């Protein structure tokens, strides 16, 4: 079980690094938004794995809140991209 958790965490960290590269490089704003979404989803995954690793059920509440906030952020970004901000820059 420890090996599986280690592999999972390593892979998710790698995925986070790749998402971060896309966040920094991303040619257009939608690329960056999608990278941020992926980032928050990966964070939810990492917290879930840590909840399994440490046997602390409270971490699952953290993931619930995190997932809710990520969902809201994606809706907010989508609205922002569709309608443009106050100063449409």
């Amino acid at each position, binding site marked *: 079980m420890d090996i599986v958790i280690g592999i999972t965490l390593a892979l998710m960290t790698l995925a986070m690094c790749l998402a971060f590269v896309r966040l920094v490089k991303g040619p257009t704003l939608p690329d960056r938004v999608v990278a941020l979404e992926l980032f928050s989803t990966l964070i939810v995954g990492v917290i879930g794995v840590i909840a399994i690793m440490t046997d602390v059920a*409270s971490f699952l509440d953290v993931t619930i809140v995190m997932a809710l906030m990520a969902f*809201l952020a994606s*809706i907010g970004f989508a*609205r922002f991209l569709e*309608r*443009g901000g106050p100063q449409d820059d």
Partner: protein
Amino acid sequence: MVRSGTLILSVAARLLMPLQLLFSVFLLLRGHDEPGGGFIAGLVAAGAFALYMFAYGTQATRAMLRVAPQDLIGMGLFLGVASTLPAWWHGQPFMTAQWWTIPLIGFTFSTPLIFDIGVYLVVLGSVLTAVVGLMDGGRDDG
């Protein structure tokens, strides 16, 4: 009233908002000894209202809230201050926590709970003020 284009969002908002508010109350009441508390509960509740706002616009959210978000901040600060006072009745230092057990239902009521509800209202009010301001600041959405 602005309707967002997608049916999925408006239906999901209507389904998710009560659940989110329920979860926030759960976090608020659990907060003293376990993870949770006024701050994160207020944030989750603000998230619920923000979701409703994204789906149905600011006017509908204001109509549902009944009070202005700024008034929630004031009410929360008032509750926070009020929770510090009962200690004086018992001749104890300012802000000492007081615990009362309500007989029939065995529910323990306390000044930390009042303080947490105050924090909850302050966080809810300030986040909603910010979100409403941002939404109204866009093109004539409001």
